[in-house]
């Protein structure tokens, strides 16, 4: 499938993927793209490595959103803060300062009890979306740098899991609107970031299958990051092969100097790196019936705002904007 998905038309975008594929950078690029198209964006960093603000060349953020780029606010999820906010807003239990002993107990229960941490994460995110839909908060879009492929299903399925486990109580009553919001295709989309390598592609395929089977959350797109360029057309490649023969290589060295063979070898490396990744791309395309966006491998020194902008531009192209 190649039709460009209307990701920017939604209110809540989750990005997941195997560790190391560039999920945070892609989420940041999407936020930047949306902001430059006039939206007010909240980016939520869930699996707090704390490096999402790097994409905007900003320091780490906390639970309270901070503007890291014009119209882009960023926050890091902290379940203890989320609980505090929840208690204050929903149960009118004021909690001053740190939760203290209650926090330790909470931490305890949360590590053990199914879905408590997840519900506080997803709950806070959905709450921001609902508040803005109902005009009490100003986000046009909430972008989530979500949990990695191994944990995302548990995270997004938490409201339903809680409904099954908890018979009564306030949380049980409040999971219904969460489920509704998360499963609304007008509002929510879950996208998976991958790189054209064996493990990221396998995890993507498995996750998409699981998401279809176990989650009501609508799938958005598969975003393939770091795609190496195809250097040559078929006929150009024949010329390239001919150039690597001893005669032409010698002639080239006579013109371009003794470094010519090194340069040819580097091109061969680039061709074969691209080629070794092609089967994974093909497998992904054949298996995952989702719109697939391709982002180029960027030959740059390091991450930062410039890279985020380049990726945002590439995303815009792929989304047909």
């Amino acid at each position, binding site marked *: 499938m190649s039709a460009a998905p209307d990701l920017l038309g939604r209110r809540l975008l989750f990005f997941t993927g195997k560790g190391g594929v560039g999920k945070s950078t892609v989420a940041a690029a999407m936020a930047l793209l949306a902001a430059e198209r006039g939206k007010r964006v909240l980016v939520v960093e869930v699996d707090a490595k704390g490096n999402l603000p790097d994409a905007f060349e900003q320091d780490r953020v906390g639970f309270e959103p901070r503007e890291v780029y014009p119209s882009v606010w960023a926050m890091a999820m902290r379940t203890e803060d989320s609980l505090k906010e929840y208690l204050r807003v929903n149960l009118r239990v004021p909690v001053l300062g740190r939760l203290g002993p209650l926090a330790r107990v909470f931490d305890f229960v949360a590590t053990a009890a199914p879905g408590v941490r997840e519900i506080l994460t997803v709950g806070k995110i959905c709450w921001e979306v609902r508040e803005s839909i109902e005009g009490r908060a100003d986000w046009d879009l909430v972008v989530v740098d979500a949990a990695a492929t191994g944990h995302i299903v548990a995270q997004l399925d938490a409201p339903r899991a809680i409904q099954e486990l908890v018979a009564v109580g306030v949380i049980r009553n409040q999971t219904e609107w969460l489920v509704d919001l998360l499963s609304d295709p007008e509002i929510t989309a879950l996208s998976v970031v991958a790189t054209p390598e064996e493990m990221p592609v396998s995890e993507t395929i498995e996750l998409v299958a699981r998401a279809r089977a176990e989650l009501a959350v609508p799938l958005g797109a598969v975003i393939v990051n770091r795609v190496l360029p195809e250097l040559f057309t078929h*006929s150009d490649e024949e010329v390239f092969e001919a*150039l690597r023969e001893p005669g*032409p290589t010698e002639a080239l060295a006579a013109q371009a100097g003794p470094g010519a063979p*090194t340069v040819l070898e*580097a091109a061969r490396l680039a061709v074969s790196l691209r080629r070794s990744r092609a089967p994974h791309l093909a497998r992904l395309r054949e298996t995952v019936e989702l719109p697939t966006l391709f982002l180029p491998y960027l*030959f740059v020194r390091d991450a930062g705002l410039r890279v985020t902008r380049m990726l945002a531009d590439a995303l815009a192209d792929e989304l047909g904007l």
Partner: protein
Amino acid sequence: MSPKRPTSEADLESLLAAKEVVVMCGSGGVGKTSVAAAAALMAATRLGGKVLVLTVDPARRLATALGLEGFGNVEKQVPTEALTAAGLEPRGELWAAMLDTKRSWDELVLRHAPDEQTAMKILENRLYENITGRFVQSHDYIAMERLFEIHATGTYDLIVVDTPPTRNAIDFLEAPSRMADFFGSRLLRWLTLPYRTGGKRGSRMINVASRPFYQVADRILGSQFLEDIAEFFLNFQSMYEGFTERARAVEALLHDRRTTFAVVTTLEGAPLREAEFFCDQLLARRFHLGALVLNKTLPSTLLDREGTQAANVLCASDEAVTGALAAADTERLGDQAETGRVLHTIGESFHNLAVVAKREAELRDELARQPDVVAIVPNLEVDIHDVSGLAEIGHHLRA
């Protein structure tokens, strides 16, 4: 296979020869699993003895190559024919095992529960799977626990452990002590207190200190849910002694002088920062940091001045260049315009890769703390999914 060459102090092969346990760590996507398997293969091939690679989640084709398909916690020998078919002459045996977290937990419960009835109560508790799935980074804990168990059997001369992906690379180091702390904590006793006094629902004894907690918790979670949790912990707590003793032993093994850590990373900003952080943490906690593996690196020839000059000429290739080439091979080179285009692409590709190679070189120079052994593995052009691929990584690990 070449004869065993004399080795200096500082190379990976002698590190593997000197240790019984090598723990490979690093952030996701750096190629930890392949490096772990390659190191184990290298040890089995060159050093001999029985070598085990304990892996967590190998790529399917690699798992198949190691004969791990469909097997959980059972260690399996990689058939010697698989090694000889790849042109190796192994002096020892390569074994492989995959970590099955669920089964490992079950075995742990069965071992430490006071009686079968309690064990079954725990295993059948609906919270059990969930809790073992996420509680105190249970994957990390169980990986270290399995390592301990296998090491204790004395079956292997060397065990190479591939660590599970963690949010934070040091999580698994702390897993054993966290596990022990958890079971020994006053908090756990306090939390389960109302349920330990034999009180049934509605008649539980709640002390003054904990009352506000239960009131809030009841409102949020519902009291039945809380009781389920408490009951589970009560049963779980019966394993306290076995568990804490075990966790301390696991920690002791990680600190043992026969154990070393190897940090795997790519020369990219984020993974490298994490690797450096990890090296610092290892040293601060007095673990033995044996090696740093820089994986998937680009060739240093990309930094050649002569290469850059040649690439410049190619990028600007004019008729003088294409004409000279046409004279060398008129048959297979296309028309001069096409040749010029191809040369331009080749030159540009070199410059592109050179930017990345420069970044890698800079990051490498900035590495503040380096262990004695630093191994550099190039970005191999093919996926590593078989024994010969692993052997190639091993070749670079030794170089």
